[in-house]
């Protein structure tokens, strides 16, 4: 994929040291550091050669109980008709990353959903609330170390059906 190389080079040109070169061949995605994410995001949206004007998907990933979280962004350009995936690793203990909600409005709900499921805080998000789960839900369900609660709001959570052991 040529576009990946191009984007990777352009980002590296403007923000030195942001792109993390991993041992995996980077032909499908670009791994970048979380610190300058907001600036990079603004850059790839506005740069005339990239113009990623549409944020398609934000996926939270938990690769295992001892590994970092990842947030994976899929961008697409309606003008230039190309797409890219950007990955950002987030440390597990204090998961947070800059919000790009004000860069792409569509990222608003997508980020809220990731927050809802993984508890990853998006710094600068103006309305970071639970999205799909109720406001009073405890825990982050899609983390690998999540345990289904026994009791929710005083109601017992049924585990196994009667006679279906």
């Amino acid at each position: 994929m040529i576009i990946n190389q191009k984007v990777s080079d352009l980002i590296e040109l403007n923000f030195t040291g942001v792109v993390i070169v991993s041992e995996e061949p980077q032909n499908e995605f670009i791994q970048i550091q979380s610190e300058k994410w907001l600036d990079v995001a603004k850059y790839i949206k506005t740069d005339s050669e990239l113009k990623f004007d549409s944020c398609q998907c934000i996926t939270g990933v938990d690769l295992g109980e001892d590994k970092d979280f990842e947030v994976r962004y899929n961008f697409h350009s309606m003008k230039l008709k190309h797409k890219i995936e950007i990955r950002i690793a987030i440390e597990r203990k204090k998961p947070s990353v800059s919000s790009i909600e004000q860069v792409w409005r569509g990222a608003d709900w997508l980020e809220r959903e990731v927050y809802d499921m993984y508890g990853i805080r998006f710094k600068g998000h103006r309305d970071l609330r639970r999205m799909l789960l109720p406001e009073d839900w405890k825990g982050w369900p899609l983390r690998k170390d999540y345990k289904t609660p026994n009791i929710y709001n005083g109601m017992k959570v049924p585990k196994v059906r009667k006679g279906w052991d």
Partner: protein
Amino acid sequence: MGLIHAEEMTLNIGPQHPSTHGVLRLKVKTDGEIISEITPVIGYLHRCFEKHCENLSYEQVIPFTDRCDYIAAMNNSFGYVLAVEKLMEIQVPERVEYIRVIMAEYNRIASHLLALGTFGLDVGAYTPFLYMFRDRERILDLFELTCGARLLYNYMWIGGVSHDLPVGFMEASYRFLDEFEKNITEYHNILSYNKIFIERSADVGTMPKEVAIDYGVTGPNLRGSGVKWDLRKDEPYSIYDKFIFNVPVGKGLMGSVGDCWDRYWVRAEEMKESVNIIRQALDKMPRKGDVHEALPKKVRPLKGSIYYRTESPRGDLGYYIISDGSSTPLRVKMRSPAFTALSALSEIATGWMLSDVLVILGSLDIVLGEIDR
């Protein structure tokens, strides 16, 4: 003596309301009829699709993808199946590809029929809704003939489809298509060009191009705003590159580009294109072939991840699948087009009247099953 105390009233539209298309709740601040603030609250139909997928094998996920967007279940499982196939690098037989396209396009028609019908219902027109349901019924009959189910099919399999086309499918298809093409004209006459309907939907809830792209709105909603973007054309998956069809875009025939009428019209025109594709597919399809030929013995993709997009009736349906090499996926994320479409609602519906908000909501064609997953 006091001043008249006037303040905004908070109104909860839903979760149980005739025209929220499911269990959506809109927290709305109103000043009389005018809506000044609108906050969608979702999650009432959250069924933990993504959590379920952590514990299911790849094949077992398919019926769950059906249940996400229950109006266009074929398209949903189509996207998922294609993603897994890409991950496993399976080449499916040509006949299977054709069957899949036929089914997906039929389901697109069925979904659009429901969208247009309920949109008419939101505006108050009852009769077109039932005409459209009558035709949708015929499509569901065809699905039932093929896979035994009317709504949730589990028809697309990884590497194939569950059943070959049954005897009599072709004849019934041609018969239906002939009838249906005439009926589209009738829908246009009774609903689309009805002056009251135009008054209600044209120039209402206009979504400019920039807003639509910024919110990540896709599918007919985006095309209604005048952006010619259709994955079937621009990034052909399966065998869509073998068909000749147009991509209708909103032109603002009755009002401004990107209004509710345009979104409606794009769907109506898309049905015609789908009929066109089905006709071509039925003609070109190889007559013989084993649909189970390419079924893998064990579905166990290599380690890796994929983001695969297909064009569902509601827009770009993306699946993000991460495989850790076992028979259960590590993560399945569904990028649902209706989710992003709904996120744009508060932007385009603020400032309109209460009746308009429901019309705008209807024109976005959301399915709560897909939004909440």
